[in-house]
């Protein structure tokens, strides 16, 4: 298909897309379902998944994530869903298919959609799906000594399974290009805040390639929430996916469940959600600007940005009782109100922060030494950024005007006026500029939300009836780092049958090796740092901690015992 063709059949809404698909693949499309004007679920035959996926991408769909799930009990099959966002038209299409568990084979799309590489490997690891023609069929999520044939997300695998640890097993790095030496950045390294391993292949000081092995600290959150807790407890666990953008995960999960269950929350609750999300963005952006300064050896920026950020942390504590992990957003609304007095305090802090950030921005943006370290560094063209399905400031720094708050409005964002800053330098510099400008947009949103806050109803709305099982809900939220997606399939035991989380680092990190290519090793920290990686956000799937020698799982009693002993 030629690029010009897309314009002729511009997709305006769900109906357009469903008609085009039905016309193009009359045999493969088994049915479509559109519970709302911004969602389209398409059931498609397994054999045609690749063709339909590529068609969706050629129509302007942005690959988001895939969701694999165990449907062996009901249909003796494994389900596989891929979601595509049509940002311009404001809807999301989910492509659902299933394969028999006896021969769980699908055609890989990773060669054509690079962003689908990890999701396919993840589904292969955790569910035992097989992808024909995958360019790099290596383990992604499971530990290297995890036995073959045990797929943790299958229902017959208990959540607390501990397979025996094996010695002498190690991840095999990609072949280093000839003439290069390997610099191991990780598993522990000063510029990574979490255990991850980048093997960087350098020729002198020039980076010629990079292999990545992550997922080292899996917490099994998805499995845990699918087997051990109930709907209402999940938001608090979801918040702990990320130490920085917790509210984002709670909001995405809560909204996905609300969508699956057809619930609506009061506008006041939606406003309070918006306020919490924007406060989180403010402190996250300031945190990143500080870290970026540190990574180019400019610690003064680091210290000053964090000093300003501290005001926001105090403010969060004032509103929620916590600096982080607020526990504010729950299914059906929020837990605490924002009173007019606190609202005034917020406004006061905002003007202080705004003035300070202006000074900070002036000194960073105007500093030619900063230009030297960031301009042209970590270059990735707009076309490549689209191919890799980048999200958030990393994508906006590459000229892609996308922002979930605008494209797929949620909470109270539909009622807010704000701009989406975009840079076209396609490098780290662009990210710096975009992040700075977004701080001012956040402040703008917060001021509007506080001045227009309606007083229309309860902070929490209870679900009218128990959630019907096997309903699909899907929600995106714009985290400070980019788009977060939560996909929920409702279950029978008052807990999700399947809950899939995709954090913004997941697509962005996949593109990092391309960004590193032919840069200097000295720029490694800032390039990796430019996506604001949150490894813990990606490390949430597999099941069990494997200690080398002594293996044990802390149950509730032991945990309480330890915490009590520590106190005294």
């Amino acid at each position: 298909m030629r690029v010009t063709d897309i314009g002729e059949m511009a997709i305006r809404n769900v109906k357009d897309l469903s008609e085009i698909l039905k016309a193009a693949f009359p045999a493969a499309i088994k049915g479509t379902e559109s519970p709302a004007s911004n969602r389209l679920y398409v059931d498609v035959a397994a054999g045609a998944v690749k063709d339909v996926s590529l068609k969706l991408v050629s129509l302007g769909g942005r690959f988001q994530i895939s969701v694999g799930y165990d449907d062996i009990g009901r249909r003796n099959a494994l389900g596989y869903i891929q979601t595509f966002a049509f940002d311009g038209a404001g809807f999301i299409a989910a492509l659902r298919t299933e394969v028999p568990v006896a021969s769980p084979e699908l055609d890989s799309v990773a060669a054509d959609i690079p962003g689908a590489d990890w999701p396919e490997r993840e589904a292969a690891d955790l569910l035992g799906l097989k992808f024909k023609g995958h360019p790099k069929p290596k383990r992604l999520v499971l530990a290297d000594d995890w036995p073959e044939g045990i797929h943790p997300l299958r229902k017959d695998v208990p959540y607390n399974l501990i397979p025996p640890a094996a010695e002498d097993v190690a991840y095999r790095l990609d072949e280093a290009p000839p003439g290069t030496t390997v610099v191991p950045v990780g598993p522990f390294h000063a510029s990574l805040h979490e255990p991850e391993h980048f093997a960087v292949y350098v020729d002198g000081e020039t980076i010629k390639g990079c292999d990545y092995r992550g997922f080292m600290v899996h917490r099994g959150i998805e499995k845990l929430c699918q087997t051990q807790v109930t709907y209402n407890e999940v938001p608090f666990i979801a918040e702990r996916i990320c130490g920085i953008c917790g509210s984002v995960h709670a909001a995405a999960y809560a909204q996905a469940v609300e969508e699956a269950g057809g619930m609506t929350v009061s506008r006041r609750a939606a406003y309070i959600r918006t306020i919490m999300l924007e406060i989180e963005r403010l402190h996250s952006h300031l945190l990143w600007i500080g870290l970026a300064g540190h990574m180019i050896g400019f610690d003064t920026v680091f210290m000053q940005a964090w000093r300003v950020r501290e005001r926001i942390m105090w403010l969060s504590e004032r509103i929620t009782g916590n600096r982080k992990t607020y526990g504010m957003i729950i299914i059906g609304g929020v837990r605490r109100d924002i009173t007019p007095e606190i609202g005034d305090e917020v406004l006061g802090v905002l003007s202080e922060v705004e003035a300070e950030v202006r000074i900070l921005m002036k000194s960073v943006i105007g500093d030619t030494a900063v230009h030297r370290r960031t301009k042209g560094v970590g270059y990735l063209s707009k076309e490549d950024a689209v191919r890799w399905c980048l999200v958030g400031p990393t994508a906006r720094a590459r000229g892609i005007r996308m922002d979930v708050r605008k494209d797929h409005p949620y909470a109270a964002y539909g009622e807010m006026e704000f701009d989406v800053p975009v840079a076209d330098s396609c490098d780290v510099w662009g990210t710096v500029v975009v992040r700075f400008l977004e701080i001012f947009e956040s402040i703008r949103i917060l001021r509007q939300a506080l001045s227009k806050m309606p007083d229309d109803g309860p902070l929490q709305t209870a679900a009218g009836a128990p959630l019907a099982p096997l309903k699909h809900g899907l929600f995106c939220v714009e985290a400070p780092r980019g788009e977060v997606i939560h996909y929920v399939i409702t279950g029978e035991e008052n807990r999700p049958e399947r809950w899939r989380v995709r954090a913004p680092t997941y697509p962005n990190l996949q593109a990092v090796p391309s960004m590193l290519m032919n840069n200097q090793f000295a720029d490694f920290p800032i390039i990796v740092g430019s996506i604001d990686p949150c490894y813990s956000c990606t490390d949430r799937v597999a099941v069990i901690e494997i200690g080398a020698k002594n293996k044990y799982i802390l149950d509730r009693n032991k945990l309480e015992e330890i915490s009590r002993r520590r106190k005294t």
Partner: protein
Amino acid sequence: MRFLYSFLNWLIFLFCAPFFEGVMRRITARVQSRKGPPLLQPYYDILKLLGKESMNSTGHRIFNAAPMIAFASISAVAVLAPLGSRPGALASHADIITLIYLLTLGGVSVLLGALASRNTFAVIGASREMVTMIMVEPVLAMTLILGAVKAKSLMPVGAAFGAKTAGFGISSALMLVVYLLALQAFAGRQPFDIPEAEVELLEGPYIEYSGPGYALFRCYIMMKRMFYAGLFIAAFVPVIRGLPYVLGLMAHLAGILVVFVIISLVGATNPRLRIDQAVKYYAVLILAALCAVGLAAKGF
């Protein structure tokens, strides 16, 4: 008596260098809105390091010897260095070539130690250190040679003080600017702390060092910084020359303090450069330094 003065020179370097380091940390902290460590913190650090175990992961002898060679070489430099109104008391036994040799020996021992540790980061750090040495040492050499040309002598005495004895011409002014621009590189501070680059190289050449070995390297670094700051005062601030010993010494140390304040402020307000960018910068400095020497030879 001469030996006593030399010994005194060394003691002053050894005991004042950590204080200047403390000042630098404090000023950096203030620029960053922090309180900063106590001024004596670098002394505590050294004492603590001296009490710790020295780890040697490769078991290589050069790894153990390198910090000692570095410390010995910088000690020798301290003995020869001009301080206050007096030139190094042993100056008549050594010329500026010796001085340059000793300074380079210190750098080379850092390289050897780094290579002996066989750590990838240390090796990258060492290669950066090497490039820095090759590009920055000429500026130092030119400064000393400029003095030598003016004084028509290779003795450190003449070299360091030559710029003054022959008056403050265009060549001296040019060299002063070059020296100031090279100061951060001499001191190994931002934007030129490239070999140690904490975020990517984790202190580079020193990554494997601990305990007394690292303490010696710390002393080496601090004394080297003090030497470069002191040389600037000795070479370009003529006032202290005529003063009595104690007064001259005080004036010199005060001058060094001012230089350290400048180093700290520049360091705190600049990001680190990449080695390829730094090399271009150094190249310009070398060229300018050569011009200064050329001018001096022509009598300007």
